[in-house]
């Protein structure tokens, strides 16, 4: 449900150095500024209705030191309630 922000793209590849969660967040906002309102701009922590997963693990620590490895995948999962 966030794909309107990313022009319909489900996946966005990034080549960033050094690769940290914060760098990835900054790059995402540069590419698609519409994501900014869904995160705290200072901490890059997502709003409470979003969960972030690094590969299959839910991220709960959004500190600037969280490093990403080559081919790591960050998944943004919004709250859904459609029934």
């Amino acid at each position: 449900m966030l794909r309107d922000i990313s022009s319909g793209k489900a996946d966005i590849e990034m080549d960033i150095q050094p690769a940290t969660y914060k760098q990835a967040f900054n790059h995402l906002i540069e590419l698609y500024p519409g994501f900014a309102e869904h995160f705290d701009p200072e901490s890059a922590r997502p709003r409470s209705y979003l969960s972030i997963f690094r590969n299959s693990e839910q991220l709960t620590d959004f500190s600037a030191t969280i490093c990403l490895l080559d081919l790591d995948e960050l998944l943004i999962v919004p709250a859904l309630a459609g029934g």
Partner: protein
Amino acid sequence: MNRLPDLTPEDYSIYEWQMWVSSFGELGQRKLKNASVLISRCGGVGGVVALQLAAAGIGNMIIAHAGNVRHSDLNRQLLMTHDWIGKPRSESIQRRLTEFNPRMKLKVVDQNISEDNAEELVSQVDIVVDCAPLFQERFAMNSQCVAQRKPLVECAMYELEAQITSMLPGQTPCLQCLYPEVPAIWKRQFPVFGAVAGTIACLAAMETIKIVAQIGQPLFGKLLRCDLNSMSFKTLQIQRRTDCNCCSHLY
């Protein structure tokens, strides 16, 4: 523990093919016959959950769904019929499910789940399947499942995306671990194909059967994300929130 009900000759003839599932068998069928489920809302998702569980032979079902049948229900809500437009959804649900499985004990409540009725409704069942379109309803049910230590199958969809997890209070994250507040992003009306709703509903019915019959590996602590645009399915580990307003007291 209550003695499990025996199967009748009619039960054997109807459920024979699923009792061939080796992990399920006759014992699984008797557990299902003994079980009671609450399904919150019986729309695109809940209607298919109800149909699948009725087909599988669950013994007791309570459904909560208010309002009258509308034209806009009919692209996905398989228990609503054209001839019932303008009449109570609860009557359409009762009629359709009773035609399908007259052996099942069915109670259809002409109300949606709220903080006023959740405690009473959850107290009457063994397991809850959450298919409500509003987080206020989902939170009321989650809160009661936590309070009464009942398992909750939590499923939802939007457009061509869907997700499901199973929650066991005291052992897995609860819904408010996942979303601590009513999400401001969610709107009551959402884009939906019946086939997407039905896809996640079938998975929810299977989760319910697995939990009741104690077979397989339910999605406890795991969120299955389904993207039907690309047909990619991912299983994600979800975390308990240590400061959760709803369930942190259980740990």
